């Protein structure tokens, strides 16, 4: 195993059909027009010395190390800033150049600590390398002059230090923050000798810095260094893998010393992230070795008993015996399984196979039920495939970007940076959200139209936009005529043209001024390539599926599907939401979205699995809890999902959990769901197993094992053990064999294999004979379903209404530094940014209730009550409050209700009528919770010994 070091070409790639041939040090090289001489040199195998250049950033030309000579030209131009020209003859080494470069290096080193042997960057320092490359042997100026060697370190950030004494003011960090991340937190303060990198005259932790790590990565010295490097030293090998956090699915290098992770560095060739990262993927991996991890299986008879540690054999035998007993006593449909989008494709495929083949029913579901199930329903109905249409890179060709019900700078930060680059380059922006999210106004980014819609009114808004398109003659008639079902279009056009859908008619319902909405619709329809990006603010509503169909209608009507720069693009919450859906984890369908009632499809699986399969849909997650309360559902295998913290109406969920006789939780930690478990099977982290994740753009990326599972088994092996103990044999030697089976059984995956993934890096399904290397943009030339189907999307107001008792609307979401239920990020230093969930409330609503910033407040709904601290925020609109669900002590889902999407049962997390008042004590639920956790997480000391 080796330490992977990507080639740094010095300046970014240029794309042009015009090629230019030139000569560098006598070597001929041909590159696209616009390429720098520096980049062309590297391509020719000639490394020109450099310090201020790196290929993730535009050239800057400050260090003067990369000077070259060009035949027929005067002077020594900087190769980073000199574009190639046909026939150019470049010399990169000469006595003159060597002297100039040594002079530059002398100046740098005269003001740099000479502590290379004890410096954390020793072995990974470009300044050190360049001193060697230019043959620096002396510093004629000495080291006694004025210098910066005693500048104070800033160690405020938990993950990296800023040591200005080592800084050469090359501005790579400043430019990375601007160009790569788009936050503009850093600047060069002062001029000349006084020039200093500054996060704005405050410590890093007090600045606008979002800790994405781009500056650390760009730094050519030890000025910005990961604390893990300072503590452990340089890594000796690295493994390419995929991040275990959000649906962007960034590719990382896990840089290792033996079996210890030293750091995670975003991989430049990662096609989803192109070498960028966020604070979670880059730094928040410490949970993988956190002391809270459970590493031995445990069982107990009652949930109030202490846990008893047992052997794996005992645990698996107990699970199989209990599940068999339950099926014998209560029937074959009395048990089921749930997976998480935190599981790999192979794991989720195996769990659904376990349920269908070994349990003999279809009671399997996955956590996409509570996030993006409406995406699957809506896009399959209208377009023919349950997946987003375009790849992330497609945003580079978008002229209009519409972000609705998504907060990408917090929830999908790496894609947000990509999007912001496109916006800074001139794309227009429409934002629809009840909260004034960051994207509405950022440095060099400002929404052209901000639609401050009220929670629950998405469908009215999208219908009004479509109304404008149809009634103002903005339909792309040629596109519709060629590609869509014309009868359905005509019916829809008549429906949507009705005056009741006009922006003026719905203004009172939506809260969006009619003129603003008309302007947004006109821009979307006429501004060139228009792309919709959306998140859970679309799906988690009683009309989530209707809204997805409404967006597909709008995109089809304006010809904005099936080409780069357009599309209807879901931003998936977790890393493998798309994959878990693809793998047949829903109770009604096999992998590849084929219904269980289809005899021909079922026959394929029956033959492959050598077992008869059920042709009726199984229980969805909420149905499981209902059936458990009712007494017909008795046993549940849960892999990686914390339903008690994440699912709505906690009281109902816990009533269902408590009513079951055998709950098996397979996870890293004793999460909230484990409080109701009878068996705990310790799981493995993404660093400890092989597999694949499929990101929001349908891209399969490899998860690679970088260290052995601390718990003894990878998760897929544990599922296999259960299946074998249940009497249904599974014998996979490696997850690649599971993927081979998926490929054999799933038409959209027939071309997928680990060999191909290793060769190409990643693949976007459909990947089959028609598209052997995958499909970045779907529906090109025609829709998967044939003709695009316009659906009638009548706005139906949610039954969750405000009244005198509950006059405010609560909407919930997430923030940058925490992830989902927080099980991972709460066990990292990310806690310093968000140690508790807080309630954001508009100043008017706060004042009316006598609430000051920081007050403890009671938040109550028809479902329950909790307490948390208030944060007064003008980004809220009056009448709407917001919080996150990252902390179990807040238990925000005690408040949310069971109202759900009509088609998929996806909960309506985004609309809950609530009241807020000052309080001085925790809610009854929170007091009960603390007692329950105390009782249900106790591990018998005797057994441990």
């Amino acid at each position: 195993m080796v330490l992977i070091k990507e080639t740094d070409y010095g300046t970014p790639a240029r794309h042009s059909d015009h090629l230019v041939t030139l000569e560098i040090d006598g070597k001929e090289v041909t590159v696209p027009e616009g390429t720098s001489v520096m980049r062309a040199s590297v391509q020719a195998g000639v490394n020109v010395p450099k310090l201020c250049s790196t290929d993730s950033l535009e050239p800057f030309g400050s260090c003067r190390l990369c000077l070259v000579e060009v035949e027929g030209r005067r002077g020594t131009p900087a190769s980073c800033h000199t574009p190639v020209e046909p026939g150019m003859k470049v010399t990169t080494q000469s006595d003159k150049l060597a002297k100039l470069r040594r002079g530059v290096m002398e100046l740098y080193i005269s003001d740099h600590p000479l502590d290379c042997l004890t410096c954390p960057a020793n072995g990974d320092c470009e300044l050190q390398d360049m001193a060697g490359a230019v043959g620096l042997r002396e510093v004629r100026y000495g080291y006694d002059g004025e210098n910066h060697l005693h500048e104070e370190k800033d160690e405020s950030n938990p993950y990296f230090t800023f040591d200005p004494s080592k800084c050469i003011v090359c501005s790579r960090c400043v430019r990375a923050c601007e160009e790569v991340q788009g936050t503009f937190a850093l600047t060069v303060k002062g001029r000349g000798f006084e020039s200093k990198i500054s996060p704005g005259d405050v410590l890093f932790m007090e600045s606008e810095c979002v800790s994405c790590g781009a500056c650390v990565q760009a730094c050519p010295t030890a000025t910005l260094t990961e604390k893990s490097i300072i503590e452990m030293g340089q890594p000796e090998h690295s493994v390419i893998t995929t991040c275990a956090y959000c649906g962007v699915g960034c590719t990382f290098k896990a840089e290792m010393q033996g079996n210890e992770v030293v750091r995670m560095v975003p991989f430049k060739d990662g096609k989803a992230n192109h070498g960028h990262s966020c604070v979670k993927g880059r730094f928040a991996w410490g949970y993988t070795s956190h002391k809270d991890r459970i590493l031995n299986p445990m069982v107990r008879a009652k949930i109030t008993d202490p846990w008893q540690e047992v052997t794996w054999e005992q645990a698996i035998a107990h699970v199989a015996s209990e599940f068999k007993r339950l099926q014998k006593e209560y029937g074959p449909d009395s048990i089921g399984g749930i997976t998480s989008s935190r599981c790999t494709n192979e794991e989720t495929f195996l769990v659904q196979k376990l349920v269908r083949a070994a349990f003999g029913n279809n009671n399997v579901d996955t956590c996409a039920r509570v996030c993006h199930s409406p995406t699957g329903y809506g896009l399959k109905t209208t377009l023919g495939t349950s997946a987003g249409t375009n790849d992330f890179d497609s945003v580079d060709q978008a002229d209009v970007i519409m972000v609705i019900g998504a907060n990408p700078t917090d929830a999908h930060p790496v894609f947000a940076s990509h999007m912001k680059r496109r916006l800074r380059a001139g794309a227009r922006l429409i934002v629809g959200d009840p909260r004034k999210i960051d994207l509405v106004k950022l440095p060099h980014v400002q929404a052209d139209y901000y639609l401050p819609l009220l929670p629950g009114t998405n469908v009215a808004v999208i219908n009004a936009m479509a109304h404008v398109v149809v009634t103002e003659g903005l339909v792309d008639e040629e596109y519709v005529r060629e590609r869509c079902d014309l009868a359905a279009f005509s019916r829809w056009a008549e429906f949507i043209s009705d005056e009741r859908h006009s922006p003026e008619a719905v203004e009172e319902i939506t809260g969006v001024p009619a003129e603003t909405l008309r302007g947004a619709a006109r821009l979307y329809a006429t501004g060139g390539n228009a792309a919709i990006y959306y998140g859970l603010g679309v799906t988690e509503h009683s009309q989530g599926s209707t809204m997805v169909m409404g967006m597909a209608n709008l995109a089809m009507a304006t010809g904005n599907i099936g080409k780069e720069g357009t599309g209807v693009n879901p931003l998936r919450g977790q890393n493998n939401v798309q994959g878990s859906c693809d793998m047949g984890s829903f109770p009604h369908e096999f992998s590849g979205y084929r219904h269980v009632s289809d005899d021909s499809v079922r026959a394929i699986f029956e033959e492959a699995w050598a077992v008869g399969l059920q042709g009726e849909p199984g229980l969805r997650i909420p149905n499981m809890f209902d059936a458990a309360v009712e007494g017909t559902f008795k046993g549940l295998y849960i892999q990686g999902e914390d339903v008690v913290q994440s699912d709505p109406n906690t009281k109902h969920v816990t009533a269902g959990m408590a009513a079951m006789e055998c709950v098996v939780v397979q996870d890293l930690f004793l999460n909230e769901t484990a409080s109701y478990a009878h068996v705990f099977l310790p799981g493995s982290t993404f660093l400890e197993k092989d597999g694949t994740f499929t990101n929001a753009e349908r891209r399969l990326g490899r998860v690679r094992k970088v260290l052995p599972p601390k718990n003894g088994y990878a998760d897929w092996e544990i599922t296999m053990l259960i299946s074998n103990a249940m009497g249904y044999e599974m014998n996979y030697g490696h997850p690649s064999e599971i993927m081979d089976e998926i490929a054999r059984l799933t038409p959209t995956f027939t071309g997928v294999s680990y060999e191909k993934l290793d060769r190409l890096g990643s693949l976007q399904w459909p990947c089959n004979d028609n598209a052997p290397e995958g499909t970045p943009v779907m529906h090109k030339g025609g829709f998967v379903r044939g003709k695009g189907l316009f659906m009638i999307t009548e706005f139906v107001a949610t039954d969750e209404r405000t009244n005198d008792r509950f006059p405010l609307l609560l909407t919930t979401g997430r923030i940058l530094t925490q992830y989902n239920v927080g099980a991972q990020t709460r066990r990292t230093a990310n806690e310093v940014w968000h140690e508790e969930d807080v309630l954001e409330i508009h100043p008017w609503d706060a004042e009316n209730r006598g609430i000051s910033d920081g007050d403890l407040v009671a938040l109550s709904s028809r479902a329950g009550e909790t307490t948390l601290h208030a944060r007064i925020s003008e980004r809220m609109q009056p009448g709407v409050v917001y919080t996150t669900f990252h902390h179990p002590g807040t238990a925000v889902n005690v408040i949310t209700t069971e109202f759900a999407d009509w088609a998929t049962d996806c909960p309506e997390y985004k609309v809950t009528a609530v009241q807020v008042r000052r309080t001085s004590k925790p809610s009854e639920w929170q007091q009960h919770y603390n007692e329950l956790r105390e009782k249900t997480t106790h591990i018998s000391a005797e057994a441990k010994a």
Partner: protein
Amino acid sequence: MVHNANQIALFFAAYPHDEAVAGVANHLRMYWVPRMRRQIIEYVAHGGEGLHPIAVEAVKRLPAPVVR
């Protein structure tokens, strides 16, 4: 159950009557477990109080499910 069936009916109510009834029936067949279908069939048999008329018609079209 009744609430969800009514939500489904309200979506399909925007379509012509026969299409709406067929849409609801198909949805129930495709996504509801047999036990739930049996429960709603029994509910309609006992009067179907509070159910949207389209849902009532759709439920009447459902074949009796086999519940294990």
